[in-house]
């Protein structure tokens, strides 16, 4: 391949990645429309909700005007969207403070939880997935297949309750409630976060390991691997030197997809361990019907999901020379 064609290939890849990015932005915009529309379906509105049943029609009308609820829907949508973009998604109805403040106290906790989970899950899932693929069809592979297949279908709260039962109740190693506050030391935080991280990791590892195995096995069936095996390269070297460079893109893809699964899992896990993150905040927003807060949380989760999908697709584009050539 000459230098010129590589450069133009890279340019093509960048254009493709840019297009993919634009399409993500468009999707995020459409998602905001869907979320806003659903939130507007609420029978009654926030003004009635806040004042309760004893309020007079005049009081409701006054508050409605104050909250801007008497404006037409598309105007309210535009001002909400504008606010979201500028980082001001409105006023939380229940906490009576700006949504951005409520969220900024919770978001770092959730990001930390996700980062720790990824740190634990990725190496373990990689080893299980690669080990399983190398042993394809063997006893270990079949056992791991059944195990990961089962784990994918196990409800998060079963994993969480079993973890509490084993590590908090029987062994008394870890606290069953995770509290995060500013004046905690790292050691204290890690001890508190251990159970949620453990639970989320178990759930995500199953998903990740299955996809890693599929990605590695897909490469194993290629002629170049057969060639390497036939010329007598040691199996571990075949995997690390020959397969991994080619499987890295599908594996990163798999990691991003499974991490997106973490977003849903966090809803249950944060709630069960009382972890002060964004997901448990969102559950509270549902219970108290705090729509501005709920909409903002939903948009953050959707944006995180779209970013992960974007990473997955862009790695696939950058790593695949055939995709680049197209």
């Amino acid at each position, binding site marked *: 391949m000459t230098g010129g064609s590589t450069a133009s290939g890279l340019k093509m890849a960048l254009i493709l990645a840019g297009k993919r990015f634009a399409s993500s932005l468009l999707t995020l915009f459409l998602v905001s429309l869907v979320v806003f529309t659903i939130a507007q379906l609420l029978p009654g509105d926030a003004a009635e909700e806040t004042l309760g049943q004893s309020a007079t029609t005049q009081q409701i009308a006054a508050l409605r005007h104050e909250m801007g609820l008497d404006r037409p829907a598309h105007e309210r949508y535009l001002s909400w969207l504008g606010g979201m973009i500028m980082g001001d998604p409105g006023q939380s109805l229940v906490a009576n403070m700006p949504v951005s403040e409520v969220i900024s106290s919770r978001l770092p906790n959730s990001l930390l939880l996700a980062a720790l989970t990824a740190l634990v899950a990725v190496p373990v899932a990689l080893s299980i997935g690669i080990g399983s693929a190398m042993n394809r069809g063997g006893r270990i592979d079949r056992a791991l297949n059944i195990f990961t297949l089962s784990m994918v279908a196990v409800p998060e709260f079963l994993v969480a309750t079993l973890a509490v039962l084993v590590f908090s109740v029987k062994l008394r190693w870890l606290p069953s409630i995770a509290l995060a506050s500013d004046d905690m030391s790292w050691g204290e935080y890690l001890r508190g976060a251990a159970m949620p991280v453990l639970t989320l990791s178990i759930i995500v590892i199953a998903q990740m390991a299955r996809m890693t195995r599929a990605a590695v096995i897909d490469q194993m069936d290629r002629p170049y691997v057969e060639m390497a095996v036939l010329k007598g390269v040691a199996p571990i070297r075949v995997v690390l030197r020959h397969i991994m460079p080619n499987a890295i893109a599908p594996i990163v893809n798999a990691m991003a997809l499974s991490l997106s699964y973490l977003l849903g899992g966090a809803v249950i896990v944060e709630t069960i361990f009382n972890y002060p993150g964004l997901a448990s905040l969102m559950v509270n927003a549902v219970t108290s019907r705090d729509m501005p807060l709920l909409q903002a949380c939903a948009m953050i*989760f959707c944006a995180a999901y779209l970013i992960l999908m974007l990473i997955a697709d862009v790695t696939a584009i950058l790593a695949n020379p055939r995709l680049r050539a197209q």
Partner: protein
Amino acid sequence: MMASSLRWARSLPLSARIGLAFVIFWLAVALVGPMLAPYPVGAFVDYDVFDGMSSQYWLGSDYLGRDVLSRLLSGARYTVGLAAAAALLASATGTALALTAAVGGAKVDEPLSRFMDTLISIPSKILSLVLVAAFGSSLSLLLLIAAITYVPGNYRIARALAVNLAQMDYVQVARARGEGRIHLALTEILPNMIHPLLADFGLRFVFIVLLLSGLSFLGLGVQPPDADLGSLVRENISGLGEGAPAILMPAIAIASLTVSVNLLIDGLKGKRP
């Protein structure tokens, strides 16, 4: 009939046979379970709360001294019934829309697919939480919410299948013969995608069981006095410290249902050439 289905079951791998047995077991429980319950569902029968297993209370007693086995048998009916109905509704809607897109041409296909792509980029738990906040959570609304949440996934798969089939020669011939779009969709395309759709139905069922029990676990799903398996886990959460069967058994029941459906589908997939 009986013999041939037995032979079919025997041809499955072991894991799929175990899965099949559990699936049949849970379907039977959902159908007749409540009739076999040793005590009335809401009755306070035990003076002690969070009792262990005994010959009198096979699965112990719950946080109010009610019989766990009786509550589990009735909870299974809610879980299985709601999830099956919602999965059926989601699959039927998704497939109907997919067929419409496949025979309707780009003018129908493009906006519909764009809309479904949008819905699919909202994580299912998040979408269902927003829907619950907007609609509330009565049984029929929960059914509808679970169905709406999983329509896009079914649509995506059914559309891929249907669009491929619509380009096949035999469909083109039928089109040239002057058959109407409804005929094309229902008699030419649909029968040839029914097998993958059945596998997808099983997966939707698993997702919906997990979603609904997750919602109930959060207190946002099935509301008292009704209780599905997820609600049983929630209401007995205070028994966790004692390792009470009241909290473990419903959670294990859900897992055994979803895992067995997964194993069964996996076994069926391996069988097809």
